[in-house]
């Protein structure tokens, strides 16, 4: 029995949150969560790229890379090819060009957001969440609609988590933390607590 799309969506947002359960996209999660505004912008960019990149990579994988994927060309020699060892490098290339596109659009329509995201926009290319989602899509044999929903849901999950962390961090800015806990260690403890609350969605 195949899971319904709605279940997949809810799963990827909450119980199988790509950030808090699979730890993908940690670097930008930690670095871009000092201010709520930056967090919202980054979350939006990640969601956008994920929603497009996952189905595009699905198409590339199923029509070019998979063993026997080239059979639609009708050429027996091509149909026998197995290009799956090129998967990683192709996915990265697709993601890099998509990010370039997003960068130009954001730069044109919202220069202030562009300045706020700074170096993290090009770094979405090497955001593990995006590549990770594409690889999970291959590993779990999603159909095209499933992969689109999965990409969108993962993006939303990332968005919610990063905004939640940014909100907590902003509040804690002036609190009296022990000296050694300031900065990174404190953020980890907060993320751990957020991850526990997300686990509760899974009915733990």
């Amino acid at each position, binding site marked *: 029995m195949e899971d319904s799309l709605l279940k997949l969506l809810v799963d990827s947002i909450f119980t199988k949150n790509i950030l808090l*359960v*699979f730890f993908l996209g940690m670097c930008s999660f930690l670095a871009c969560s000092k201010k709520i505004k930056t967090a919202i912008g980054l979350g939006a960019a990640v969601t956008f790229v994920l929603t497009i990149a996952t189905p595009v990579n699905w198409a590339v994988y199923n029509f070019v890379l998979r063993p026997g994927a080239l059979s639609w060309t009708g050429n027996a020699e091509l149909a026998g090819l197995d290009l799956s060892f090129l998967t990683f490098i192709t996915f*990265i290339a697709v993601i*890099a060009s998509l990010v370039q596109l997003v960068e130009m659009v954001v730069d044109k329509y919202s220069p202030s957001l562009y300045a706020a995201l700074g170096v993290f926009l090009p770094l979405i290319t*090497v955001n*593990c969440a995006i590549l990770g989602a594409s*690889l999970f899509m291959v590993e779990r044999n999603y159909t095209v609609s499933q992969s689109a929903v999965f990409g969108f849901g993962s993006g939303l999950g990332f968005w919610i988590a990063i905004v939640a962390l940014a909100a907590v961090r902003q509040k804690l800015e002036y609190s009296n933390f022990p000296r050694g806990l300031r900065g*990174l*260690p404190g953020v980890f*403890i907060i993320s751990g607590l957020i991850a526990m609350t997300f686990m509760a969605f899974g009915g733990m």
Partner: protein
Amino acid sequence: MSSPFSTMATPIFRNNPVLVQVLGICSSLAVTTNVSTGLTMGISVTAVVALSNLILSSMRNWIPGKIRMIVELVVIAVLVIITDQVLKAYAFDVSKRLSVFVALIITNCIVMGRVEAFALANKPIPSLLDGIGNGLGYGAVLLLVSTVREIAGSGTWLGMQVVPQAAYEAGYSNMGLMVLAPGAFFLIALLAWAQTEFLLRKGGK
């Protein structure tokens, strides 16, 4: 100029990539539920960082600045593909359990970060040493975290039973939290805390 030894030794503790530079957090949390995956991941990352540092550093005078990122990604991706194929051939079980995380070495910030921060400005041999040092520093954290998580979470170490059967009969039970995500967060937090505290004390207030 620092000596070759210190180039290699500082990133292992004082300038640890995971705890101080905050690079490569994703995978250090994800693959540490048991020691065997943590160890494999540590070795793979060391190999990839060291080789990519060496290759890109020897190419650094010929790479045009504008397409730098793309060249770096291609070199790293090729190295990761080779690592993945080697793992599939010689350690299939572990590579199955690591699943997508071997591929994710491509986007592991340690690799990119060290290439950008060190290899592009230094000669090949120091770059190689820097790569090895950072890989080992990363591996050390993985080993530590995965040891704690496996012993506390499953009562084993590298698959061997560590917690005696008698303890279970006396009412001891494994700490499920350690296997799950939050456990990893708390552990890394404690490690980073201990390390910052140590450096603060040593450095004089």
